[in-house]
């Protein structure tokens, strides 16, 4: 564990990617294979399952530290991270132990088979054997939340340097549903098992947001435009008579969306498509809003009724594999032509349809089309360079998203709550209201979008202008107006305002605007009518 804790400290103590890459490379050159495998797993979001629940851990830590539970909870509220809170309150260890990372993880995984007293004894013993960062890292492992500010890309680069295997190839090997408990470092990295490749998705090609004017991108004839859908990015794989659907977060969604089993009836084996999973309104021939999809996302198994009410399709925009051949190096225009040929005339009942290209001759044609995206049930446009290969991950220059500006409304701040973790000593979580006659009706919360300097200023003001406290929440006088941006608006029976917003955030603080001039509840309802 010492080696891994040292790595963790090195990664945590720098903001420079070169230093992080060097630390990781050194670790991958040096650590035992099983530790390397687990490190790859942890850094790619494959954490060991929680075997002890958070409230038990809290109780045991509070007991060991001699603190009443309420005080432990109050501390946790400020720290914002259970693993760290436990680490900070525990007394110093009395023993020592020299066990490897994978050893400790085996211990943690083994706890699922134990009764509670045995679990407790094991955890208390670990806490009494691990010092400093090792104990913090151990707590991160048992609480199942592991983030160290290392992107998968950076990790892949370091691994590539340590193994001399090409980065793109490694990125591909690391995709899919492998688990550190059922594979080895060799089986995954150095001598991969061809069986496992069957379900393995390609790393997704990701886009950046357009900066400035799209006409800066060069001649329009070099570019293709498509609608940017508001669904789930998905990769549909048809190989070996089976099908697999992957999300961009590398989650296997095959069982969640049984519609795609039928894709095999319409498309040849050895096909991999990139596209957007959308709830499809067959009558209107357009996607339904994200809310409809939300109902499906939450369900591991789908009841028949929901399947009939909210059927999904994949609107495909790229072809990554045809006849088992990897097409990613081909220019996008060629891949697109092959895709169109493959999907040409596909039966309407097929769960896959072509996502159309949006025609334009000149950049100036495109702005009004984008402005109308909501009417097309899209959230903007995608711009893709016709000659570009399908990149691994996010690479600037070839794929751009040109989203609509968010909807916005001016609202009054009425409650403030302190943040936690990174923002432990700042008021950052606010509740906003709009006018209904002389009354302020709360309609959303938001906690992002301001600069640190603005949060400092607001915090200063909140501390001096608290009218009432409800636990961590403070009621403040309605004096500050903020422009709230959001991506969508829905009817809601759960909220007093009757609406629910999608992705609300603060676009800016409007100190210039008198409170009386904030928007009204009627304005909000009008937006619901128009965009809901």
């Amino acid at each position: 564990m010492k080696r891994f804790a040292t790595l963790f400290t090195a990664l945590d103590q720098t903001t420079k990617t070169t230093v992080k890459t060097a630390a990781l490379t050194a670790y991958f050159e040096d650590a035992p294979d099983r530790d390397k495998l687990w490190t790859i797993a942890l850094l790619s979001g494959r954490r060991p399952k929680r075997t002890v629940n958070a409230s038990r851990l809290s109780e045991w830590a509070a007991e060991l530290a001699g603190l009443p539970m309420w005080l432990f909870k109050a501390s946790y509220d400020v720290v914002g991270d259970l693993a760290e809170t436990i680490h900070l309150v525990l007394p110093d260890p009395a023993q020592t132990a020299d066990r490897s990372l994978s050893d400790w993880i085996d211990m943690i995984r083994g706890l699922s088979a134990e009764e509670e007293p045995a679990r407790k004894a094991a955890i208390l013993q670990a806490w009494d054997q691990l010092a400093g960062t090792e104990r913090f890292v151990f707590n991160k492992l048992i609480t199942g939340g592991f983030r160290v500010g290392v992107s998968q890309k950076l990790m892949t680069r370091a691994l590539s340097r340590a193994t001399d295997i090409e980065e793109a190839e490694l990125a591909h090997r690391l995709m899919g549903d492998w688990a550190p408990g059922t594979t080895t470092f060799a089986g995954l990295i150095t001598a991969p098992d061809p069986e496992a490749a069957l379900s393995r998705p390609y790393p997704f090609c990701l886009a950046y947001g357009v900066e400035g004017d799209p006409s800066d991108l060069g001649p329009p004839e070099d570019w293709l435009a498509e609608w940017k859908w508001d669904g789930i990015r998905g990769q549909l794989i048809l190989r070996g008579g089976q099908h697999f659907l992957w999300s961009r977060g590398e989650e296997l969604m095959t069982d969640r969306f049984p519609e795609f089993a039928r894709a095999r009836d319409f498309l040849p084996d050895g096909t991999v498509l990139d596209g957007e999973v959308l709830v499809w309104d067959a009558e209107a021939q357009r996607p339904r809003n994200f809310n409809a999809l939300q109902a499906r996302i939450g369900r591991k198994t789908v009841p028949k009724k929901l399947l009939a009410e909210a059927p999904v399709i994949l609107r495909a925009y790229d072809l990554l594999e045809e006849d088992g051949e990897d097409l990613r190096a081909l220019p996008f225009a060629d891949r697109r032509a092959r895709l169109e040929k493959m999907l040409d005339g596909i039966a309407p009942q097929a769960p896959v349809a072509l996502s159309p290209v949006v025609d334009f001759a000149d950049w100036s044609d495109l702005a009004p089309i984008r402005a109308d995206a909501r009417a097309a049930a899209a959230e903007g446009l995608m711009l893709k360079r016709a000659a570009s290969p399908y990149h691994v991950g996010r690479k600037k220059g070839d794929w751009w998203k040109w989203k609509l500006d968010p909807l916005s409304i001016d609202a009054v701040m009425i409650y403030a709550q302190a943040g936690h973790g990174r923002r432990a000593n700042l008021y950052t979580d606010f509740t906003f209201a709009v006018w209904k006659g002389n009354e302020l009706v709360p309609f959303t919360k938001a906690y992002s979008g301001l600069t640190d300097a603005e949060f400092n200023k607001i915090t200063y003001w909140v501390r001096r202008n608290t009218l009432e406290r409800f636990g961590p929440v403070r009621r403040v006088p309605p004096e500050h107006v903020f422009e709230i941006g959001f991506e969508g608006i829905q009817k809601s029976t759960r909220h007093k305002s009757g609406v629910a917003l999608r992705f609300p955030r603060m676009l800016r603080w409007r100190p210039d605007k008198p409170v009386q001039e904030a928007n009204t509840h009627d304005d909000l309802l009008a937006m619901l009518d128009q965009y809901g």
Partner: protein
Amino acid sequence: MVLEFRDEGIFCPAGGFHIDPWRPVDRALVTHGHADHAYPGHRRYLTSAAAAPVMRHRLGDITIETMEFGETRDINGVTVSFHPAGHVPGSAQVRVEHKGEVWVASGDYKTTPDGLSETFAPVRCHAFITECTFGLPVFDWKPEAVLAAEINAWWQANAAEGRVSAIGAYSLGKAQRLLTMVDSGLGPILTHAAVENTNDVLRGQGLTLPETVRVTPETDPKMHPGALLIAPPSALDGRWARRFGPMSSAFASGWMALRGVRRRRATERGFVVSDHADWKGLNAAIAETGATRIFATHGYTATFRQWLESQGYDAQIVQTEFGDELVDDEDAA
């Protein structure tokens, strides 16, 4: 009540004076020179002798009287005295006695010695007004020697790689504390003008600080390879710091105990060096006063009050304007 809590600050009705008031008053007893305790505009100031020079430096032409630590003075039949608070050089707790009842206003305090400030001296009293900036059990400071070793190791490693080590610290107190902690044999120490001006004041009153080089527009960083640079945090973020080329940045504050806050500052290193008492320090200080009535001012007041109640104290929260005059300064705590 020997002391009352008023809109303008803590007030002694019998003595007719205030302690650390935030609005202009006739007579102010001031615990230390930080801006949230030493406000401008009072007619008369009374401070510890060691706190006065900085106060003059910051507030300009003020009418100021001083007392040595432990010396007593009668103000309208009320006996007052200053006692070391261990927060910054000269920082005081104010003891106020009227008709046999003793109250102590602590200002900001730190219970462990740091080789720079006069060491905190517990004062027996009936009622104690305490800060609780770090009044949660997650705050547990490491010994001074351990912290010093961490900072020196960081400096040494940077110097070996040809980088400047830049450390953000409040110009009064934290900066000088760092100066006493670091091993000045490791290389030159450069200081921002705000820090060096305070250094000059403190040296002038007899404090020993290692040799430092004031950064001026003419300063050539190349002449000081492997230097340690001490500056207010805001200066390190801005253009001023750019001339020093590749640097490793750090921040010294009790808040650095929290990983999240450290990450928000986006400096590479966070050293948990505070001039406030940690959880154990606060509890020990309160116990040693023997007081039964405790007033918690700035910090995690609600939680801390509840904790004190559970420990059998009569505890209350007092709203003051200490500790949050600028959140960034509080970050420097």
